[in-house]
């Protein structure tokens, strides 16, 4: 009798059910810092309008729920929520105010993107904190830009979209979807398991500091050991 309406209603109720479940999870895991309705407290910022993408990023990478609001920055850790639970949480937060949605696979999939363009964009926008190839770097007062090694394309995309913690956000108006893909493709090329280091050991990819340490310890260290060895072998009269 109400067939079309029924379907709409079913969808709507499924949606509200998800939000309902999300709210329950929120109350248990997040409300103590972010407030009962996501309005924020002195321990955590307001979540109104941060969008589903922010929730997906923060919870999937284990940053949220943070163990404590102390410390300079919330570190990445093991995620304890299932994807379904994260979706429910994201739906609840999204219901509080409009914000960026979780990107779909065809948005962040780096297949066919321009790696070289991505490199240029990365050096222009990201390297000043994350290092040339995304090895991470220090910020003020114990804060840091984390290493991007092994971060999933989806999470890199979400981070650019939402600007977690100290990171500025790069919405599509500032950096197009294609450019984000290029950056993800570049990072995959230069900072992943498949990256080739034609010169040998990468030594952390941190530049001259680690190279200098290596030269002193293994280069000069080995040569001094060799010198001691050579000096110990001298042309003495044969003992017997």
């Amino acid at each position, binding site marked *: 009798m109400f067939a079309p309406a029924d379907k709409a209603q079913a969808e709507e109720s499924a949606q509200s059910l998800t939000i309902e479940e999300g709210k329950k999870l929120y109350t248990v895991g997040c409300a103590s810092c972010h407030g009962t309705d996501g309005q924020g407290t002195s321990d955590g910022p307001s979540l109104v309008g941060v969008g589903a993408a922010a929730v997906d990023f923060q919870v999937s990478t284990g940053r949220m729920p943070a163990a404590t609001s102390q410390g*300079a920055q919330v570190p990445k850790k093991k995620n304890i929520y299932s994807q379904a639970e994260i979706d429910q949480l994201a739906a609840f937060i999204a219901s509080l105010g409009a914000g960026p949605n979780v990107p779909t696979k065809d948005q962040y999939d780096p297949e066919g993107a321009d*790696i*070289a363009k*991505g*490199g*240029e964009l990365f*050096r*222009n926008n990201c*390297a*000043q904190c*994350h*290092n*040339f*190839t995304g*090895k*991470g*770097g*220090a*910020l*003020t*007062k*114990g804060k*840091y*830009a984390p290493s991007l090694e092994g971060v999933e394309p989806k999470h890199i995309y979400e981070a650019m979209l939402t600007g977690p913690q100290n990171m500025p956000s790069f919405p599509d108006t500032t950096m197009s979807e294609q450019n984000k893909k290029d950056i993800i493709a*570049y990072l995959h*090329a*230069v900072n992943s398991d498949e990256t080739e*280091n*034609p*010169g*040998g*050991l*990468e*030594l952390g*990819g*941190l*530049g*001259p*500091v*680690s*190279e*200098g*340490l*290596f*030269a*002193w310890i*293994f*280069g*000069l260290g*080995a*040569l*001094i050991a*060799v*010198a*001691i060895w*050579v*000096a*110990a072998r*001298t*042309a003495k009269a044969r003992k017997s």
Partner: protein
Amino acid sequence: MSTSETTESRSRGKAPAGERVADWADGRLGIYSLAKANMRKIFPDHWSFMLGEVCLYSFIIIILTGVYLTLFFHPSMNEVEYHGSYVPLQGQLMSEAFSSTLHISFDVRGGLLIRQIHHWAALIFLAGMFVHMMRVFFTGAFRKPREINWLFGFLLFVLGMFTGFTGYSLPDDLLSGTGVRFTEGAILSMPIVGTYISFFLFGGEFPGVDFVARFYSIHILLLPGIMLGLVVAHLILVFYHKHTQFAGPGKTNKNVVGMPLLPVYMAKAGGFFFLVFGVIAVIAAIAQINPVWAIGPYRPDMVSTGAQPDWYMGFAEGLVRYMPGWEINLWGHTLVLGVFIPLVLFGVVLAAIAVYPFIESWVTGDKREHHILDRPRNAPTRTAFGVAWITVYMVGLVGGGNDLWATHFHLSINAVTWFVRISFFAGPVLAFIITKRICLGLQRRDKDKVLHGRESGIIKRLPHGEFIEIHEPLSQDAMYTLTAHEQYKPAEIGPTVDENGVERKVKASEKLRAKLSKSYYGPDSQIPKPTVDEYKEITSGHGHH
């Protein structure tokens, strides 16, 4: 005529080929007397005397690999689009210098290995010079007659720093470009002349289109040319002065105890060259250095975190990083103290170690030649000064890598910077005091060993129940070695009135010298070494301590 000549030479019989070649060469070069005098030249044996060789060989390796690199490198800042083998830079605009460096790395046979040998050898060359210099310093080998050679060595170290820096800048990558930008900033901070020097060096506004070509001439011709000359002079002086040796029985200020140059040292040194080459080649084959492809081409609007120079410029980087960003504005001109003071300190720190030998010889007033080395403990003030200097240097290195200390030890970069600022002042003072104490402690230990012998570890119980440890007397050789050093007496100002009772003017420099001399050789700065009388008195006491 010609017939008679051939008969004559035939009648004398043919000399062996080697002799004929030697004779031919001697007739033209006069090498016989030279070789005769020097082939049996004696060198003493100690591993630390080979540190200079490490430097020499790595320098040779750098020259050889550098020549190979010049065959393929284009020192030009013309903009080109990259279409080589490295995919993540395809189609990027870059300078020809950068593109040819990529070409060397990916498309020239053996190019990357040679590049890496060149760069690793440079880091090791500088590290070797640093350690060699410290060996010379702590053993007092810089004393007369070797002061000038000390300065030659110091100049080699400083020129090495700048040769390294100009070479590091050549690929025109984002990292080295940031370093050149840093240098430009340091030059600009110089009052009045800074702007002019910068415009002169870069041919206009930074970065311009000239600096790679200019740095190239400096890097491959000017600086290495001067260095090569200095290396030769350095070695000639080592030959001329003869090598120093550690004190020991049979070793005097007038002899050298060791092995002859030929065949022993030729074999050793020749072999050691290949060992040095081998170690550097192995390192270059297994560890990547300066991967310019990952760093990307330089553009003045880009910068990366973790941008540091090679280690030998690290302390200069540190000075700038931990200096507060002070500046003064005067009549529309800005004096950037935050950069200018570090620039001055850079020179002061380097000069401090360079002039030290002259200060010490002024304090001691010693005009004699010294060919016997000091043990560092027997020159506590010098040793303490050296350790304090190294402390300042190392504090600079820590400051230069403050961001990596912060990320790798989970510290706040501000805390690291403050630690370094305080250490810059407190570190050398503490290091000086602690080192001096340790030296004096070691002197006491030596004295104790000479007078009471070595602890044997054997415990004996006497009939009345007392336990004593048996001390074994040292061998005469060991006792000689431990007491061979000479101890200066602090210089006195002398009578301030002359024989007629007229007061003499005491110059301020004289007072300073007496004061310094007292701090060098006063009772708080050295333990009087054991005398024969003391030894006899103790050893005649029938084993009772």
